[in-house]
């Protein structure tokens, strides 16, 4: 155990030092690793390029001997496949035959009938040829059955005997069948496959020359028939072959033939991959990619996910390449199919270590130095990494001892791969990770700077080369917004690179050039591949391949046995008499050939030397495959061709005619062949068209399936969540649900309509018109301002009101006369639910309801009920201060205050002034300092004291309902339903002292908001009213940075200056009414409309910066951060846009009805509401961090509004309740 511990310590210490090293010198280490990767991959250059074309090797015929199996040294350029005997020696007899002289009495069929007929005598000759005691029968390749699937070819290909292929096979090598065949063309063509094909057809196989050059057609102009007799020999007997050659040459001499006969070509065939073999291969690759995808997806919390994923993949791939390179360096040439074992190697090596490393480094404390973070992360995972590595090595070693060669080889590769992968992880990936972490830290720094407002000015330049300096938070009236043009100049480098790439299409060009180079290299290194390919596919008759042939050496044509002529002399030379007339005729005709115009001319050119080159490169494999003989990874040796020239006289041609030949109208048959050719063309065209249409349809369907409606929106489209499903991020990952019980603020009887906050206080207004003020810290209800109209109408209906009524009816009576004759009245009540405040002492008996008689000195001890520091302090201050000047009855006011502190239930004043409009409801509300501004539907603007619940001021200048309010500094802007905009000034007359409630010292850092003490006389005067600010009702009103921005249903946004209420701009650009506006201190202005569009504006110039369509339906809310814009719409989708480019980053599907509820707590934390829960998201990556359930009962009501307080708490409405949620502590780390 101690040894283990010590080992562990040593390992972790070593890793720690290594981490320090990597993080300290990233660039040299990356250079070093790249260099080592390149050196290790260098041996790969020697490996052959992938390609399946056959490879050739030429040797002389003279000193040929069968290569031995062993690896005797390396004999110069001898390829490594050239070992052991070939599968077969191929001897081809190339026959060119023509009827000459041609005269007009001959019919087209005569062109090929009699020349083809000669094949039988030739075959006989070859078969019967005997040299000493050897016959063809003993030398040739004996074949057995055809493959079971080729029964229809049974009559056409030889079985159970020599593999000897000639056109005679069509007639089973029987002359009588040929003579009785009425239509040769039909016989030949009936076996042709109908469709398109690339492999050798039967006609190619039997004729041994490309179909068009056979001359077997009614249409040929040259009137020369060409075919080969192909003999496969199993063993090579030089003298037998030479004698056969001499014999045939003697019988049918070719006068002007100068074919070289001194080279033997060995053709090696590679393993061919059929489609059937590709399917498993493709499957394994698909699985491999899925594995890589699922693995790299887990990389998290880093600056660039893609970069790290790429680094991980590069690590694995280059370790594979290194292993192959190293293995081939040490002489272990891969015999396994690399492509097949590759996926398994990747899976064995795996990406796990990389992920573990990343996770461990990321989870180290953020405030550490990067170096230390890397080192700590490495050392904490060192033990597990080493353990895994050792386990894998042991497993592979076990595999090595299975003694199966293939598995051993795989294991060897895997071991080298594992070691090199470890090396790369340690050096390459760790360094990349350190660079990434450093980048993230810089970004963090950038992000945090704006928060530290008023702190030292942002350090310039070198620290943050990548991003534009963050806008420091200015004081409200200084304008530091960057002009859009300026911003464009300062694009991040990364983006600039991307744009450059996109502009110049660099990637495509590089790929194209690479492909071209690859093809070129293939052509150069593998001429046979190109030539056969061309011969097979591009043009079957052009001798293009021949042109590329390297010129052969001019070796004297000497046979091992001596000169062919001498061999001939040695030969028994069986009677050359059978064809004397032919021979003489041939000579004569050949000489007199050019004289008649139409006489066919037999010429021998260099293209006839290797006829098989012009065939499909699958010619030999397919011929042998019919007999279940594979040529893959084996080779055949092709002997020099034996030329045979046949000249036939017209008489002979006429004699061999079939009676039907003349009856056949040559034209029709010619037509049919032509028609056939035409038909193939049409077929090809039709097929191509069909395939094209199909492809388009398929792509269309794919397009419809994959990008249903929101094309171009990157980010995964979320399915709408069902009720009760866990909210999850785009990967389907749901973080643990945290059971934080939020503070429930109960008291409202109906749904909450308006919410306003000012850091410390929170005001809410429900549909019933009741306004409640809460302490944002503790969640206590401070004040209740009932709606008078409701009070009057539903006084008997509401039980909670009832509770408060009876005990305090005397008080009501007492205060009635006072309230009767004064206008600015204060009403408050705390209709508490017993369930919530049941643990609090019932103080009603303590309350002395006879307010008028109790002296103020006795009040103090009475307020022993601690109800929040804030309120108590306020009251103490108020105690010391003289009574308010404007309420005529100071004692009453004081007693009011005390009753509030007691948490007693004070009755509302029921009897009120006549002009009071009770039925009006609160349409808008704002809270600043301790003043609540409430705009009513009647057009009345009221200012309430938030702490005391007293109406401080009321303005009834307008009659149209106030739809929106903005309260900034000492100004209130009210937007009315009729489209007018009223600017009010709130004046504070400090009556006596300058006592101002400023809040506890701890909260001094809160944004300075005007605080009004209850002693101030507050008046609210209409300074200016802009009639017809908009033609239609104003829907949104926002004020910040000295600007007031209004949005209306008339599709325009207007910007006013707050000081002089002067209209600066009218911003047009929306195609629907404005529904959301965002403006903040940095003068970022964003607006969203009913058309689903979001516009970003430059407040300085009034120009539109960007315009994006984000939502189907209205945009319901908009928030901007320094880097992005968040919008939510009626489609319950929250979209996050990049602010500078207007590119959508991702979107989050919200639950129904919760679309508008979103808030940004910090630059990187987003809060959204859901069915009874709120979710926290990482704004940078769109990851769901946490979900907090608001109520214990699962049936959550949707969170419709959500407000972020300054102290990182959020308030959301929850039906008739409010929920105060403190941001969970887990999340605080993030910030």
């Amino acid at each position, binding site marked *: 155990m101690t040894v283990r511990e010590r080992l562990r310590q040593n390992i972790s210490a070593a890793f720690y030092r290594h981490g320090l090293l990597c993080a300290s010198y990233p660039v040299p280490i990356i250079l070093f690793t790249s260099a080592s990767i390149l050196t290790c991959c260098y041996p790969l250059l020697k490996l052959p390029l992938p390609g399946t074309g056959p490879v050739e090797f030429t040797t002389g015929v003279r000193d040929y001997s069968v290569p031995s199996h062993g690896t005797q040294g390396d004999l110069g350029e001898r390829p490594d496949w050239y070992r052991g005997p070939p599968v077969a020696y191929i001897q081809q007899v190339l026959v060119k035959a023509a009827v000459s002289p041609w005269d007009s009495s001959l019919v087209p069929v005569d062109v090929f009938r009699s020349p083809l007929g000669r094949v039988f005598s030739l075959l006989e000759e070859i078969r019967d040829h005997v040299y000493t005691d050897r016959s063809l029968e003993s030398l040739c390749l004996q074949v057995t059955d055809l*493959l079971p699937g080729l029964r229809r070819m049974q009559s056409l290909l030889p079985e159970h005997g020599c593999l000897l292929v000639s056109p005679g096979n069509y007639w089973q090598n029987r002359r009588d069948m040929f003579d009785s065949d009425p239509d040769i063309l039909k016989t030949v063509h009936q076996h042709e496959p109908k469709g398109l094909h690339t492999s050798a057809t039967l006609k190619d196989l039997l004729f041994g020359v490309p179909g068009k050059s056979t001359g077997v057609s009614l249409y040929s102009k040259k009137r020369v028939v060409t075919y080969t007799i192909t003999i496969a020999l199993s063993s090579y007997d030089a003298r037998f072959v030479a004698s056969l050659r001499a014999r045939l040459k003697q019988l049918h001499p070719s006068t002007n033939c100068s074919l070289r006969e001194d080279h033997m070509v060995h053709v090696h065939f590679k393993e*061919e991959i059929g489609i059937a073999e590709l399917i498993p291969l493709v499957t*394994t690759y698909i*699985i491999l990619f899925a*594995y890589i995808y*699922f693995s790299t997806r*887990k990389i998290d919390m880093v600056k660039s996910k893609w970069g790290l994923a790429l680094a991980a993949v590069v690590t694995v791939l280059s370790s594979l390449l290194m292993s192959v390179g190293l293995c081939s360096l040490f002489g272990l040439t891969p015999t396994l199919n690399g492509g097949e074992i590759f996926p*398994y190697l990747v899976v064995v090596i795996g990406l796990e270590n990389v992920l573990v490393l990343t996770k461990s480094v990321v989870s180290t404390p953020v405030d550490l130095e990067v170096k230390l973070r890397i080192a700590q992360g490495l050392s904490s995972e060192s033990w597990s990494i080493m353990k895994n590595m050792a386990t894998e090595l042991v497993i592979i070693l076990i595999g090595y001892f299975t003694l199966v060669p293939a598995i051993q080889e795989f294991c060897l590769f895997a071991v080298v791969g594992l070691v090199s992968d470890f090396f790369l992880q340690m050096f390459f990936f760790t360094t990349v990770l350190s660079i990434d972490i450093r980048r993230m830290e810089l970004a963090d720094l950038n992000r945090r700077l704006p928060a530290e407002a008023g702190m030292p000015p942002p350090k310039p330049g070198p620290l943050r080369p990548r991003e534009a300096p963050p806008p420091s938070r200015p004081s409200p009236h200084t304008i530091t917004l960057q002009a859009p043009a300026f911003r464009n100049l300062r694009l991040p480098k990364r983006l600039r690179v991307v744009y450059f790439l996109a502009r110049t299409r660099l990637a495509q060009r590089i790929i194209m050039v690479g492909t071209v180079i690859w093809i070129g290299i293939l052509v150069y290194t593998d001429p046979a591949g190109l030539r056969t390919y061309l011969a097979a596919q591009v043009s079957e008759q052009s001798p293009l391949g021949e042109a590329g042939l390297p010129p052969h050496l001019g070796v004297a044509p000497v046979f091992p046995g001596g000169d062919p002529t001498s061999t001939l002399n040695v030969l028994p030379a069986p009677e050359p008499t059978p064809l004397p007339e032919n021979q003489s005729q041939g000579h004569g005709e050949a000489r007199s050939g050019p004289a008649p115009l139409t006489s066919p001319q037999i010429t021998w050119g260099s293209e006839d030397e290797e006829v098989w080159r012009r065939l499909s490169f699958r010619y030999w494999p397919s011929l042998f495959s019919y007999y279940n003989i594979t040529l893959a990874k084996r080779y055949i040796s092709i002997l020099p061709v034996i030329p045979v020239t046949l000249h036939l006289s017209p008489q002979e041609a006429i004699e061999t005619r079939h009676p039907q030949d003349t009856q056949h109208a040559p034209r029709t048959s010619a037509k049919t062949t032509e028609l056939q050719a035409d038909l193939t063309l049409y077929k090809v065209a039709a097929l191509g068209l069909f395939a094209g249409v199909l492809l388009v349809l398929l792509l269309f369907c794919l397009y419809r399936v994959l990008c249903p409606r929101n094309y171009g929106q990157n980010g995964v489209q979320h399915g709408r969540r069902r009720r009760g499903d866990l909210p999850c991020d785009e990967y389907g990952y749901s973080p643990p649900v945290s059971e934080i019980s939020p503070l429930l603020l109960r008291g409202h009887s109906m749904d909450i309509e308006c919410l306003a906050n000012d850091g410390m206080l929170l005001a809410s207004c429900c549909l019933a018109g009741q306004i409640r003020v809460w302490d944002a810290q503790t969640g206590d209800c401070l004040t209740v301002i009932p709606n008078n109209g409701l009070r009057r109408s539903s006084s008997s209906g509401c039980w909670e009101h009832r509770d408060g009524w009876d005990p305090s009816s005397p008080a009501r009576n007492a205060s009635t006369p006072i309230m009767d004759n004064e206008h600015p009245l204060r009403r408050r009540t705390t209709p508490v639910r017993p369930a919530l405040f049941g643990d609090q002492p019932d103080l009603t008996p303590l309350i002395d309801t006879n307010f008028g008689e109790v002296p103020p000195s006795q009040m103090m001890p009475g307020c022993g009920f601690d109800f929040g520091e804030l309120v108590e302090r306020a009251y103490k201050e108020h105690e010391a201060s003289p009574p308010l000047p404007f309420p005529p009855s100071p004692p009453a006011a004081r007693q009011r205050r005390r009753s509030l502190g007691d948490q007693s239930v004070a009755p509302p004043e029921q009897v009120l002034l006549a002009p009071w409009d009770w039925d009006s409801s609160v349409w808008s509300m704002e809270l600043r300092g301790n003043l609540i501004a409430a705009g009513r539907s009647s057009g009345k603007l009221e200012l309430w004291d938030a702490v005391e619940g007293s109406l401080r001021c009321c303005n009834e200048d307008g009659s149209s309902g106030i739809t929106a309010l903005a309260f900034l500094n000492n100004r209130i802007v009210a937007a009315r339903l009729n489209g007018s905009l009223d600017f009010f000034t709130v004046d504070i007359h400090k009556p006596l002292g300058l006592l101002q409630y400023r809040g506890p010292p701890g909260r001094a850092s809160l944004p300075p908001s005007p605080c009004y003490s209850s002693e101030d006389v507050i008046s609210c005067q209409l300074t200016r009213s802009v009639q017809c600010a908009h033609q239609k009702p104003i829907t949104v009103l926002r004020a910040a940075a000295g600007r007031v921005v209004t949005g209306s249903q008339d599709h325009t946004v207007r910007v006013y200056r707050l000081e002089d209420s002067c209209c600066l701009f009218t911003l047009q650009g929306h195609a629907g009414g404005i529904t959301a506006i965002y403006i903040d201190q940095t003068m970022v202005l964003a607006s969203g409309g009913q058309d689903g569009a979001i516009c970003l504006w430059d407040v300085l110039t009034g120009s539109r910066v960007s315009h994006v369509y984000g939502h189907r339906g209205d945009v319901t809310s908009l928030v901007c951060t320094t880097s992005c814009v968040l919008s939510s719409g009626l489609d319950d989708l929250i979209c996050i846009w990049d602010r500078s480019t207007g590119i959508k980053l991702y979107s989050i599907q919200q639950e129904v009805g919760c679309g508008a509820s979103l808030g940004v707590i910090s630059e990187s934390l987003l809060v959204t509401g859901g069915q009874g829960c709120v979710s926290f998201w990482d704004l940078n990556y769109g990851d769901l961090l946490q979900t907090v359930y608001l109520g214990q009962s699962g049936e959550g009501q*949707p969170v419709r509004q959500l407000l972020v307080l300054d102290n990182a708490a959020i308030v959301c409405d929850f039906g008739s309740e409010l929920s105060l949620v403190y941001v969970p502590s887990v999340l605080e780390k993030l910030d």
Partner: protein
Amino acid sequence: LANDRLSGNGVALRGPYISMITNHTTNLLIRGGMLFVVGVFLALVLNLLQVQRNVTLFPPDVISSVFSSAWWVPPCCGTASALIGLLYPCIDRHLGEPHKLKREWSSVMRCVAVFVGINHASAKVDFANNVQLSLTLAALSVGLWWTFDRSRSGFGMGVAVALLATLATQLLVYNGVFQYTSPDFLYIRSWLPCIFFAGVITMGNIGRQLALYECKFVQEKIHQD
């Protein structure tokens, strides 16, 4: 607004049970369907691998070689894999020992890749004799179990299913329903159980991973209730 709330409450009142049932069954069906498809696909591909062992060059027809086996083989494999994939999480739940090891898709993908690799090895690698083949395959299968499963229930289930499946195939062979290309009886017997075992482990892994979603859902339900 109020309407919304009312209807929401209504759903909540009678919703949970019905939605639970429907969700459960639909969930089961979806999972079963996915597993079936995966099983059929793997059966086709792996069968192709096995077929290739006997075809030397140029299979005359790709399509026919893809469907070279009898038509009922892929559906059988699909059904079996669906059953196994659904059974695994079920057993886990009943035993009360939820699967803890590496519950993520990348690990599942790795498992599938190793399974295909085992098949590949059995089809492509030339072994000296059958004992070697079967031993190697057995070691690989157990290695697969150790790497990706490590649960006793998984091992037991794998062994049981492998034995049953081998028995069933042998019965089929005896009854002449189909025959193997290779006449070597021992050869068949040796590699078949290992492949079955590895397949069971793989399908179980997939099934458990799929069931993870349902588990989450049920937990959520319980939490809500």
